[in-house]
């Protein structure tokens, strides 16, 4: 299992602010995303979206392990 957290407008696309996904072994981030519904996977492909694994921002390809929390952070709202 991995926990996926969606911030901002991604919550509306995902239909929930978080979901859990079955995950039996360490899996590349893009393979995790590929398991999601097409519209959500497409939204998460926006290059402006930052990803945090267990609360720390990651850059580039990441390996997601069972038990990880994966957060998707779209651009902040500005002011």
């Amino acid at each position: 299992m991995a926990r996926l957290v969606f911030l901002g407008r991604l919550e509306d696309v995902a239909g929930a602010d978080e979901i859990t996904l079955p995950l039996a072994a360490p899996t590349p981030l893009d393979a995790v995303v590929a398991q999601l519904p097409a519209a959500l996977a497409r939204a998460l492909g926006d290059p402006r979206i930052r990803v945090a694994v267990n609360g720390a921002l990651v850059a580039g390809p990441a390996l997601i392990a069972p038990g990880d929390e994966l957060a998707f952070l779209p651009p902040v709202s500005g002011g």
Partner: protein
Amino acid sequence: MRVVRLLDTALDPAAELARFAAAHAGAGGLVSFLGQVRGGEGIEALDLRHFPPLTLPGIEALADSASARWRLDGIAILHRIGEMPPAAPIVLVAAAARHRRDAFSAVDYAMDHLKSDSWFWKREKRDGAWRWIEPRAEDGADLARWAPVT
């Protein structure tokens, strides 16, 4: 005095400022910014979301960076999260300094970064419907006013 807080209940700016001013009674100058939920245009509520592992540490780093750039006696950054009605206080930033220009710059800098470079997502409720607020074109220009410290 360095105060950084995220509040999920009402922010009382007058009480917070009185406390901050009392702690910096000899400072000479104290600048503050208070942001409130805008009224009008059918706005019924504002909802501020954050990401706990990053939002508060990011604001703490912002307070430290303002303190490093200017000669401050103290800085306070208090930010609401959650749902708020129009006119509710959202954010209070205060800086105390011997020289007023330092306090003005620190608060201006902190506000530009809180607004455009902090982990907050906002949605507005208008006429019963929630809508996420997107970044604005000016945000980059606001941040570009502050050259990186090298």
